């Protein structure tokens, strides 16, 4: 059952990923991206990461894809001049990507997973619950990165507003 779910979700994720780069319009790319993120959330569930699955759907599918759709619709379908032209650079890109795939695939399948086993076995997590276990870790060992992420988000908000704001001419600026 687990294997079937993995194969189905993995196939959807790969097809959606291909869809993102093949789709002719940016809107379709964004919708394929949504599908990709949702199947990733399913895979997180299979991997016993319930909190992350929920966060994935809320943050990625709920916020980021919507943002992409907003901007795509705002800017309209720009002309993509050199799309899918058989360029030497595109050919090179695909070849290099294939090399990367073979390389990493070799590493993944040749070695076994080594490393020290932690104490967070599924049973230990099930005793307190996934969310609580992550929360405890987040507010003890990872408190500094957590706070930094909060500051980063604030800077991101300010930066986005500054960048996207219409620049008015200085005269009206003074009058206001």
């Amino acid at each position: 059952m687990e294997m079937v779910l993995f194969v189905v979700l993995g196939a959807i994720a790969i097809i959606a990923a291909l869809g993102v780069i093949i789709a002719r319009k940016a809107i379709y790319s964004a919708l394929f991206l949504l599908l990709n993120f949702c199947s990733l959330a399913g895979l997180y569930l299979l991997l016993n990461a319930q909190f992350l699955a929920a966060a994935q759907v809320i943050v990625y599918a709920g916020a980021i894809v919507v943002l992409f759709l907003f901007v795509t619709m705002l800017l309209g379908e720009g002309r993509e001049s050199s799309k899918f032209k058989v360029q030497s650079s595109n050919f090179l890109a695909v070849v290099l990507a294939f090399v990367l795939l073979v390389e990493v695939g070799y590493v993944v399948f040749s070695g076994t997973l080594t490393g020290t086993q932690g104490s967070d076995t599924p049973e230990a997590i099930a005793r307190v619950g996934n969310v609580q276990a992550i929360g405890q870790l987040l507010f003890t060992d990872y408190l500094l990165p957590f706070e930094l992420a909060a500051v980063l988000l604030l800077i991101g908000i300010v930066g986005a507003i500054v960048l996207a704001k219409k620049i008015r001419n200085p005269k009206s600026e003074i009058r206001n």
Partner: protein
Amino acid sequence: MIMIPSSCYLALSTIIFVIGGVGVLVRRNAIVILMCIEMMMGAAGLAFVTFSRYLNSLDGQVVVFLVMAVAAAEVAVGLGIILSIFRHKETTDVDEINLLKW
């Protein structure tokens, strides 16, 4: 219950990452390039969660959570940049955005 070997998840993560990388290199629309970068981040997150599951440690999941925050900030700023470039150049084609070239 038979556990799926970790290499399956890692292979899937690699495939999605490579597809995203091809997208970044091949596509010319800046918005789609940003989408592909997001996809690569998601693939890396899948690898993190896989290691977290198979090494019995929650650290990987915390990292993915922090990466989500970074990704959200990145998209907001990235789309802001694309928007303001579009105001100047009326295009989102990265081939035509060569402001630093002279």
